[in-house]
């Protein structure tokens, strides 16, 4: 195999990985603030994919552009979900949170299955097969657009957390929940906003993914696992870490599927996960707990 093929695969992997990173970022925000692991994360990604698929079918809306409206709707859904269903579980043991969210995941996958059937869905864009040629290396146009959209969303979020009062308040609540309550922050509202932001990330990422791959409801559990792997490698709670983790896992899986075989690619990310846990349990960008 030639050098340019490896370069191609690597670049495609990195670009796809940035979109995965955005999805994982949502998981990271929810865990970092609310301290609940969203075991239905991949399921929400698939819901977003269906939303993008429907928007494309109805209005010919490009899935990458659809990421904006889908993210907004997902924010509202996440806000309400946290307020009604998840909030009572915030103080409950992890395994009970797990059952709640696994129950939710089962409901989502099977509702989609009932509504849309098990067939793989696919969106055909005018530029689906276009590519840029850089120094003899071909790069898919759609992946470049997707990765760029993911970066824009991520940058917006970073700015939100860094510069807005609400963003600062959320960081305060994530850092010290008791302290945040003492200084009079409405922690429940901040939690709901955080859950909303987490779902907005997965909504945007899911829409973009619809432009990149075929989709079935059965994809959901593997996306959940992918998001977990990425945030642990990058460091749970770290935003830059999630993005970098996505990039790393995307590149590693892409290379593994050409070098070894496509069926083995998830094992490579699990191997990376084990390696990171052994060498740096808090993740590449995570802060060590003191």
């Amino acid at each position, binding site marked *: 195999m030639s050098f340019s093929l490896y370069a191609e695969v690597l670049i495609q992997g990195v670009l796809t990985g940035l979109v995965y990173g955005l999805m994982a970022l949502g998981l990271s925000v929810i865990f970092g603030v609310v301290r609940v692991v969203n075991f239905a994360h991949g399921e929400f990604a698939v819901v977003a994919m269906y939303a993008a698929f429907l928007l494309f079918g109805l209005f010919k809306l490009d899935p990458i552009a659809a990421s904006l409206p889908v993210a907004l709707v997902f924010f509202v859904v996440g806000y309400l979900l946290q307020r009604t269903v998840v909030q009572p579980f915030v103080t409950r043991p992890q*395994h009970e949170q797990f059952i709640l969210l696994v129950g939710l995941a089962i409901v989502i996958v099977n509702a989609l299955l009932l509504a849309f059937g098990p067939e793989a869905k696919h969106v055909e864009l005018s530029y689906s097969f276009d590519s840029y040629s850089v120094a003899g290396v071909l790069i898919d146009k759609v992946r470049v657009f997707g990765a760029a959209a993911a970066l824009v969303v991520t940058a917006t979020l970073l700015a939100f957390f860094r510069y807005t009062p609400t963003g600062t308040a959320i960081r305060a609540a994530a850092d010290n929940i008791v302290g945040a309550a003492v200084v009079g922050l409405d922690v429940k509202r901040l939690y709901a906003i955080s859950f909303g932001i987490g779902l907005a990330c997965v909504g945007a990422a899911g829409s973009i993914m619809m432009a990149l791959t075929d989709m079935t409801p059965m994809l959901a559990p593997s996306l959940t696992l992918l998001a977990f792997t990425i945030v642990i490698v990058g460091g749970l709670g770290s935003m830059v870490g999630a993005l970098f983790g996505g990039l790393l896992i995307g590149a590693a899986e892409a290379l593994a599927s050409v070098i070894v075989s496509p069926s083995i690619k998830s094992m490579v990310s699990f191997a990376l996960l084990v390696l990171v846990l052994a060498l740096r349990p808090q993740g590449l960008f995570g802060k060590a707990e003191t």
Partner: protein
Amino acid sequence: MNELLASLPFRAKIALALAAIALIAAPFLVDRYVLSILLLCLVSAYLGQAWNILMGFCGLLSLGHALYLGLGAYAAAALYVQFGIGPWAGVFVAIALGVAVAVALGWLSFRFRIEGVYFALLTIAFAESARIGFDNLAWLGGAAGFFLPVRPEDSGQWQNLRGGPFFFYYLALALATAALALSAVLRASKLGHAWLAVREDPQAARALGVRVVRVRFAALIISAAMTAIGGVFLAFWTNSLFPAQIFDMSRSIDIILAPIIGGVGTLFGPIVGAFLLTPLGEGLTEVLGAVGLNAPGAKALVYGLLLMGIIAGTPSGLWPWLARRLGLEQKQP
């Protein structure tokens, strides 16, 4: 076991005895279909006890128990089919394999202080890696599955676990009873008290001189070994193994549902949960079929909603609530 019996009020002893008699007599009273559901309940109760020792007693959340189930199943099945070694010998290899992997996982997590969510996610990663590995292992059939031969001339060979429904039913009953007894003995033992101390507060336990890592290893090894034995049972009962089924995440979820719904850390919780959830799943198929809602996914959808409802309504599981209501609580020693 004696401590368990002594701690039960008179009413509970009667209830336990009646349940035991009903389960022993069941094969002669009910039809094949009901018997197969009872068997599933018993298997679920058995696996639930195994998981409960790790999570309920020692506080380590494993979301990948399908790993030990699958390893045990494949080990015994491979020995039987490829080398003609029967399951009564194979079960020891199955246990050894399950324990070896559990020790590797334990070493990695305890050595590097991987706890809480991280431990749970690591168990998922191990189980998923095993699934992918076995999917690509051509020697044992890979993704196409691995099958145990079912020959008429073998039937009745109990030494090779080749029996009918009655045989497997009583075997499952024996396993579930043994698991309950073992849990009761462990719970009352010195080790059991150390587990509870570690579960509640590892640092305080360490300060009191409990060897936290060693105690956790003990729970992990016992739990993995029991689950691997369950895998051997499953292999010879179903006669077919698919990595996508036996190592699947949904299998791990099935294992932990019964003890969580029944009551984590209790002795009877896994049993109550198993005898509630298994018939619930089966009953849903019947009910939804009767009202014409048997589209694929409808059953699982309702099941998911029920799970969310039950976990929201009974925070510490059904058994503690049920026991209080019926006056079956254990006396505190």
